């Protein structure tokens, strides 16, 4: 596509052209109307003057006869001006006046006519235009009174040519302006197109240029940039997930494969094979668990699970989950207390919130035990609090806690602190909790329980606020 062709094809340019032609047509109509009316007005004035003069002259004729008329006409003809006078005999011989020659036949037709004429003193060959009235006097005399039309024509031409020029200038300026505006818009659109192309080519960090004028293109660019931001975050999440899948699934897969290989190589009797197979089953079960947790996180992070949100009582969840884990805690010598008497209604996904809380309790049991420093039995408190705006589901333990510096890190996927490596687990528990909290427009906070760790899921009561765009 040539640059010019591209220019002509733009919406801005087409719009400019349409507006320009409409405006030019209107201007031409207006000027034409003005010119014609001016001309008509001048003609009317001439007619009136000529009529008045003829009335006056014929009055003179009636009072003083032809000689008086000739005297008066002579006197008037000598005055400077554009008036024309002529008195002739019945056969056309001039008796008085300032007209030298006329178009033939004018004198023979009484009434109004436009004609070419020459004044008496004029010698050049071209005549002038005049509007004349011929009046028959008794006795065969004819009286002609007229006005030169040059003035009228000049005015008319001035208006017409002014009109032509202004339309021409409007057209030229309009086209130039159109091209200018179009090129400006086109440049910005081209810049946007270019950016989108680099983005499509894989550079997700690209952003559309914003001129800062706050116009509609800027608004569009800002919105698109926001969209790109979201896409980039999603893509980064996806990238992270696949990296993590690669990392966390390949390790146990390798282990699984090695075991199978080793069994094939060195197992001697049936019980060896059985042991190897049972290990393989266990290993694959834990793989499936990790895989499910990953899918769950991805789903929570994609915001897809918002469809299944409904009102539920978080206090009931705290009681249920607390009750579900209480025997396990007790078995490990930990006392589990539930403080969730008051209802805590919240909008969200009951299953996901339950799982998040279960993960926190599970963590507290695994890492929060078994005994406090002063020898008192370990304790876990599961709490549901309604603070008016938010619902806080918290799990506090009395274990060693997590140093403040490490707290943000443990929420990341697969992060397991050194001291927890011996415990089974995927390292995905807290990231799932954080993802669930974010899905609900809330957050996961890790606080010092002095001693121990308190994990708090804070959820806005009304569920996630859908951000526009």
């Amino acid at each position, binding site marked *: 596509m040539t640059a010019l062709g591209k220019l002509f094809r733009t919406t801005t340019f087409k719009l400019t052209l349409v507006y320009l032609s409409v405006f030019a047509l209107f201007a031409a109509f207006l000027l034409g109307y003005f010119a014609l009316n001016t001309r008509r007005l001048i003609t009317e004035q001439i007619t009136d003057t000529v009529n008045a003069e003829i009335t006056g002259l014929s009055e003179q004729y009636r009072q003083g006869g032809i000689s008086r008329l000739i005297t008066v006409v002579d006197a008037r003809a000598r005055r400077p001006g554009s008036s024309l006078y002529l008195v002739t005999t019945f056969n056309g011989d001039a008796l008085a006046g300032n007209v030298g020659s006329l178009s033939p036949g004018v004198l023979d037709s009484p009434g109004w006519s436009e004609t070419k004429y020459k004044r008496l003193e004029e010698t050049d060959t071209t005549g002038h235009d005049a509007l004349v009235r011929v009046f028959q006097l008794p006795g065969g005399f004819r009286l002609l009174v007229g006005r030169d039309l040059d003035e009228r024509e000049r005015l008319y031409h001035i208006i017409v040519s002014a009109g032509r020029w202004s339309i021409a200038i409007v057209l030229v300026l309009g086209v130039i302006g159109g091209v200018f505006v179009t090129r400006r818009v086109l440049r910005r659109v081209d810049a946007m197109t270019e950016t989108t192309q680099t983005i499509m080519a894989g550079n997700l960090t690209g952003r559309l240029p914003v001129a800062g004028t706050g116009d509609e293109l800027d608004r569009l660019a800002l919105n698109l940039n926001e969209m790109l931001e979201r896409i980039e975050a999603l893509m980064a999440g996806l990238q992270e997930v696949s990296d993590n899948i690669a990392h966390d699934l390949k390790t146990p897969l390798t282990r699984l494969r090695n075991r199978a290989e080793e069994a094939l190589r060195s197992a001697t009797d*049936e019980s060896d094979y*059985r042991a190897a*197979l049972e290990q393989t089953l266990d290993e*694959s079960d834990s793989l*499936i*668990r990790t895989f*499910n947790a990953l*899918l*769950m996180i991805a*789903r929570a992070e994609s915001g897809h*699970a918002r*469809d*299944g949100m409904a009102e539920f009582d978080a206090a009931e969840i705290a009681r*249920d989950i607390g*009750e*579900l*884990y209480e*025997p*396990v805690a007790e*078995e490990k010598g930990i006392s589990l207390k539930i403080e969730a008497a008051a209802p805590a209604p919240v909008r969200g*996904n009951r*299953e*996901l919130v*339950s*799982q998040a809380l*279960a*993960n926190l309790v*599970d963590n507290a*049991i*695994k890492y929060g035990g078994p005994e406090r420093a002063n020898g008192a039995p370990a304790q876990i408190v599961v709490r549901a609090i309604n603070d008016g705006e938010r619902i806080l589901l918290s799990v506090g333990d009395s274990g060693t806690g997590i140093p403040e510096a490490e707290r943000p890190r443990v929420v990341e996927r697969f992060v397991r602190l050194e001291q927890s490596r011996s415990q089974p*687990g995927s390292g995905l*528990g807290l990231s799932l909790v954080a993802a669930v909290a974010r899905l609900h427009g809330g957050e996961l906070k890790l606080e010092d329980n002095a001693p121990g760790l308190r994990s708090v899921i804070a959820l806005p009561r009304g569920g996630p606020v859908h951000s526009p765009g």
Partner: protein
Amino acid sequence: MASFADMNGHRASGYSAEAQPDRTEMRLLVIEDDRDAADYLVKAFREVGHVADQANDGEEGLVMALDGDYDVLVVDRMLPKRDGLAVIGTLREKGKHTPALILSALGQVDDRVKGLRAGGDDYLSKPYSFSELLARAEVLARRGGSRGEETVYRVADLTLDRLSHMVMRGKEEILLQPREFRLLEYLMKHAGQVVTRTMLLENVWDYHFDPQTNVIDVHISRLRSKIDKGFSQPLLHTVRGAGYMIRDGAR
């Protein structure tokens, strides 16, 4: 390839020797387009004494399910020609109410809800263990039985009154927490059948996620200490590699 029985070895018929479920022969239809998976399932069902047929696409499955007299249908969610949910939907429209268990690779909560809404009776996400599938299929096949309407469940000298919430072992009343009562109620409703940990979690606690820790085992051992402790004959049995079962061991 080792047979299913070989793989389980001492778990004869898929379960441990000490507690055998009351197994009446079931007729199953496996509708699954992956032939290897279908062959495996048919073979495994046969090895535990059931009769299983297979269909490899939705159309074939629908025709066989309509004509055949099956106790349970095992239906894959994604099938060629007609997808699993559509097969179940059509069956239900035609008045065929054979219990159907949906197998799905999707396994998300809303997928499960969709499956049950389409007329499925149970849902299992892939990959699954055969013992889980078997336990669920057996429960589904027995569902038509009368147990659900009984007000008093009895296993040997253990009775559970669903109306008065009274549990007796012999002449002794056993006091249970509300959740323990529901746990025992579910176990006794399916007395003689294996119930898995996930079935308990789903039906007693209404959770569909994996709690990671052996929470169910601890609840079971608490319940066991209440109903079996001090009695010569244990009723609540652990079925290795599968789950739990309440049954009168003397039979």
